[in-house]
């Protein structure tokens, strides 16, 4: 019997949120002052939540591992943010945004949450403009929109190629204002290493001060996790170096269920790996596919010649090139969704047609577009991206085709939350990429920013009040209580144990190995045999890690290796769960592609009868496998259909 | 004065500086009269006018205030700047900037030393604080100047100081515009160009006198 209750309000989907807001419990201003809230993370979701809760009058403590809240990785988002404003008069509406998001997610997201997301999307744009976010504008002074993948309308607002940065700076400025007013207290350079439960409710966290090494205890009436995604489980990803799953994972171990961990998004246009010392992958905007044509050589002999540099890409005649996306998907061509484009690139490289020194890259060629539109037009459209590419790769994309390869970019899975964004631990909320809720099995472009800000600005401030209304008689907590002492002791012991393992290899050594296993067996395409192998290898790795990792430096000082060691330990455990999740989902959907379940043309084959559910995993202790709970998804508004891009 | 914010200090310094820049032009005009081969009549006349006119007398006080303000704020700002970086870099900064702009304090000191010397040689004599050299009356600036410039080391020093002043002004003029917020994409290049031209004109103009006297009067 499942313990999952999504607590979706009754009534038609379009009025659920309005009804909820009119009927949820409120906390009066005098009581808000007596209630403490902890927010972990200062990305779009965390900063917007902390600022909004501070404005309401709650006493908020906000934590980030970075030196400043402004540096959270939301800042790296390039493309834009969706909203159903319908400014271009092209027929957009909340329903259409809702529909596109559900379909784009391959029908694995919860209707009620996604509809609410579409409803509040417009308010986000209004607020951001009022904060001074310099969105792109038309000559008439009104806001500009552009189109983005997976939609037939132009609903994406953008600030050059730095939309994430500008939105985050907006949220950061609102947060800074609350900090100055004394409603929010900032704790920077802190790692959140455990969640503290008192009588089954989330009541605090244990942190490590990254500068002094001190283990600190913080109590509150509710805890909000906004700690982002877990793409770094793959070692190489477009995430920031410090992005980690640890706060969410500690909550998982305390009883919050982790949903759909195997749903990861692989972005098709990244700069390929150059060698063994690579630490990080760089994304190139998806917009490049509007004008670039993707191809690999048709003949293996040409691949060989390219690799030993006896010919240049431009020497290969047109008839010997394989524009495989145009060949396989004549209708959408190079503009197929992210998951489809990524898999097709992998298929070609696996078949031996990959280019570049490593053989794991495909060409993205602008020669035709330059000929058709002219050098200057291409420069105006993509100049900054071309420069970025040249800076990293030292090749000029005007002269020779770019080389690209897919890379891990976003994780749709995360902590399971109900309609109120509360996890299975009462009083523990999860917002933004940290939760699983809105993107199903695949996220559409420009939706991540929308979701993070929707959760933080417009959803959580209501739903958390509904929970806290019952907590107004709970006095502030004493962090000397036994639950805090126990948790703090646990964290200290764990760190000491890691430090004293007496091993020989660096943390990165293990992280790289984990990344290789995950990428190989739980990456763009998965199959049962591979996943079984991955499970075996990860278990091995976990045991080796405990004995083999070497951490220099002390516990009570700035120690980046120690920070990484905790994060990687959690990634290894998470990796195992991802593999189990991928194994149980015997269908292909969105970012999750199982070789066994594909159409005769090699497309993803969903199984809605058996797998139209959210897989939520419950922790059972280290040595016992996690148990699976299912939240069956009900589709009342939308008819499920096969995605086709032919 | 210590309470003023960074920008206020800079603005007052810039205003005082711009005022001094205009004064330099007047002073140069008088100096150039030395080049006239009339036994110093025009020069002495101008000097007498400057020394006796009531309005100019008032102006003199303003001028002193301008100098003092510029110098005091210069020192304050430099102090603030020194304090802002207690540990210096092992490798000196090699950013692409105007090479002169970083030496405003140094060129300022040179100009200040010159100013002191100049006071000693002229102004203090005029007001009777210092005895004039034998054979020259306290108010006889013309012969005093000829005497000084007939000494090659003095002329060299004089020219050196004015090159320093030129360098100082080259950055100072555009810098003052920037500090006062008068920066605009359309005319900033013109401001820079005119500033440089003016500073060259000042440095060259003042240096011309000793060169002329050294080579053509003796």
């Amino acid at each position, binding site marked *: 019997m499942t313990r999952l209750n999504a607590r979706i309000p009754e009534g038609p989907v379009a009025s659920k949120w309005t009804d909820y807001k009119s009927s949820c419990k409120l906390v009066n201003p005098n009581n808000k002052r007596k209630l403490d809230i902890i927010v972990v993370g200062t990305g779009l979701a965390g900063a917007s939540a902390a600022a*909004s809760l501070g*404005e309401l009058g709650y006493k908020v403590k906000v934590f980030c591992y*970075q*030196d400043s809240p*402004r*540096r959270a990785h939301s*800042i*790296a988002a390039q493309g834009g943010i969706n909203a159903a404003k319908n*400014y271009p008069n092209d027929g957009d509406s909340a329903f259409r945004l809702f529909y596109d998001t559900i379909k784009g997610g391959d029908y694995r997201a919860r209707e009620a949450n996604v509809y609410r997301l579409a409803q509040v999307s417009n308010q986000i744009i*209004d*607020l951001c*403009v009022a*904060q*001074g976010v*310099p969105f792109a504008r038309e*000559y*008439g*002074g*009104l806001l500009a929109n552009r189109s983005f993948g997976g939609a037939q309308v132009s609903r994406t607002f953008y600030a050059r190629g730095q939309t994430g*940065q500008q939105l985050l*700076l907006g949220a950061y*400025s609102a947060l*800074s204002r609350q900090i*100055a007013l004394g409603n929010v207290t900032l704790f*920077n350079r802190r790692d959140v290493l455990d969640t503290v439960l008192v009588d089954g409710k989330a009541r605090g966290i244990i942190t490590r001060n990254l*500068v002094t090494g001190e283990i600190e205890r913080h109590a509150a009436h509710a805890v909000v996790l906004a700690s982002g995604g877990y793409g770094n489980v793959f070692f190489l990803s*477009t995430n920031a*170096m*410090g992005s980690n799953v640890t706060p969410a994972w500690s909550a998982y171990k305390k009883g919050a269920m982790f949903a759909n961990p195997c749903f990861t998004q692989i972005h098709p246009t990244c700069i390929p790996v150059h*060698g063994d010392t690579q630490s*990080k992958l760089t994304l190139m905007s998806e917009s490049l596919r509007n004008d670039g044509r993707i191809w690999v050589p048709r003949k293996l002999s040409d691949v060989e010649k390219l690799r030993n540099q006896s010919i240049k890409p431009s020497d290969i005649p047109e008839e010997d090139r394989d524009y495989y996306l145009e060949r396989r998907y004549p209708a959408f061509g190079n503009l197929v969704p992210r998951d489809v484009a990524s898999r097709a690139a992998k298929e070609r490289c696996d078949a031996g047609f990959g280019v570049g020194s490593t053989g794991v890259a495909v060409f993205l060629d602008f020669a035709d577009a330059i000929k058709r539109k002219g050098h200057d037009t291409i420069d105006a459209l993509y100049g900054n991206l071309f420069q*970025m590419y040249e*800076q*990293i790769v030292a090749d000029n994309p005007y002269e020779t085709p770019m080389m690209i390869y897919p890379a891990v970019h976003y994780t749709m899975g995360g902590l399971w939350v109900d309609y109120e964004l509360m996890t299975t631990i009462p009083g523990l909320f999860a917002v933004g990429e940290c939760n699983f809720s809105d993107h199903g099995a695949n996220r559409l472009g420009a939706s991540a920013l929308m979701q993070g800000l929707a959760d933080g600005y*417009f959803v959580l401030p209501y739903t958390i009040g509904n929970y806290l209304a019952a907590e107004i008689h709970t006095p502030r907590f004493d962090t000397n209580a036994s639950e805090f002492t126990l948790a703090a002791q646990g964290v200290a012991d764990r760190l000491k144990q890691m430090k004293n393992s007496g091993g020989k290899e660096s943390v990165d050594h293990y992280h790289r190995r984990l990344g290789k296993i995950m990428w190989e067996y739980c990456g763009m395409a998965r199959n049962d045999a591979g996943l079984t192998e991955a499970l075996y290898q990860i278990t091995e790795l976990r045991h080796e890690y405990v004995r083999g990792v*070497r951490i*220099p430096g002390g516990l009570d*000082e*700035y120690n980046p290796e120690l920070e990484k060691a905790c994060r990687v330990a959690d990634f290894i455990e998470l990796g195992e769960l991802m593999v189990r999740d991928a194994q149980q989902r015997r269908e292909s959907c969105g970012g999750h592609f199982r070789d066994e379940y594909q159409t005769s043309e090699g497309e993803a084959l969903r199984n809605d009868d058996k797998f139209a559910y959210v897989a939520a995993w419950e922790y059972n202790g280290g040595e016992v496998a996690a148990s699976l709970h299912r939240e069956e998804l009900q589709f009342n508004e939308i008819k499920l259909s096969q995605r086709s891009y032919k | 004065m210590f309470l003023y914010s*960074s*920008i206020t200090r800079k*603005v007052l310094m810039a205003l005082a500086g711009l005022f001094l820049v205009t004064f330099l032009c007047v002073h140069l005009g008088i100096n150039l009269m030395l080049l006239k081969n009339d036994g110093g009549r025009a020069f002495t006349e101008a000097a007498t006018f400057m020394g006796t006119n009531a309005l100019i007398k008032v102006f003199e006080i303003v001028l002193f205030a301008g100098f003092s303000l510029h110098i005091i704020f210069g020192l304050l700002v430099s102090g*603030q700047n020194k*304090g*802002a*970086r207690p540990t210096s870099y*092992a490798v000196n*900064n*090699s*950013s*692409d*900037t105007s090479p002169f*702009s*970083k030496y*405003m304090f140094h060129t300022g000191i040179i100009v200040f030393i010159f100013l002191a010397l100049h006071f000693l040689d002229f102004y203090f004599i005029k007001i009777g604080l210092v005895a004039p050299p034998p054979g020259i009356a306290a108010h006889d600036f013309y012969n005093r100047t000829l005497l000084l410039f007939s000494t090659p080391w003095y002329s060299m020093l004089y020219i050196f100081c004015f090159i320093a002043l030129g360098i100082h002004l080259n950055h100072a003029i555009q*810098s003052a515009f*920037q500090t006062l*917020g*008068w*920066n605009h994409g359309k005319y900033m290049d013109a401001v820079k160009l005119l500033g440089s031209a003016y500073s060259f004109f000042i440095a060259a103009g003042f240096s011309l006198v000793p060169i002329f006297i050294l080579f053509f009067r003796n």
Partner: protein
Amino acid sequence: MNFTLKIWRQKNVAVKGEMISYDVSGISPDSSFFEMLDTLNQKLIMTGGDPVAFDHDCREGICGTCSLYINGRPHGPVKGVTTCQLHMRSFADGETIHIEPWRAKAFPVIRDLIVDRSAFDKIIQAGGYVSVNTGGVPDANTIPVPKEKSEAAMDAAACIGCGACVAACSNAAAMLFIGAKVSHLALLPQGRVEAAKRVQKMVACMDELGFGNCSNTSACEADCPKGISVSNIARMNREFLGAKLFSEKEKVVRVSL
């Protein structure tokens, strides 16, 4: 490629630091600067040494975390990039590379190459925002903004807060950072409402934190990885003067209920 590195090592804020020399070899020219340092650190860890601590996060030039002063220039020799976007092909084989932390009174060294830049957060907290709460704002298209103004605001808003301007400045001044924020908000009608108050508060906070004063050398602009222009400093000066000279005196209004 091989390099000799001279790196500032300092255990914590309380002790003295010094430049220490290291050799790295076999570095690919395609490696990023941080991947080169990663290689050094791996070697140090394996040989029982203490790895070099440096700030870094996104490694794609946008978060503003990285902060190395390389051979006399913040973010190294290449114009318009952050340290994390610097590649070893920009250096000569066998070169000696000096690596130091940002140096400013307001940015104390935490360890090795890491400095504390929370002074920047404090400056933003002093007024770098528009005082609106979530909810209750007008429709986004209510106030048209001229495209040129909006673009200029975006130019200023592109600042990543890395502190290279302070590091480059011979006076350790933070004027470019503050000028950029003041300009970004002053150029937009939404930010104009509080413009006079904002600039005064932010400048006062900057002074309090011990930053230097501007001598218009433009080193900040030259080394800003985002190319923020010093015209933003001029705009700040203008805003500041205007505010000091013409803004209304603040009155204390008591509201009795």
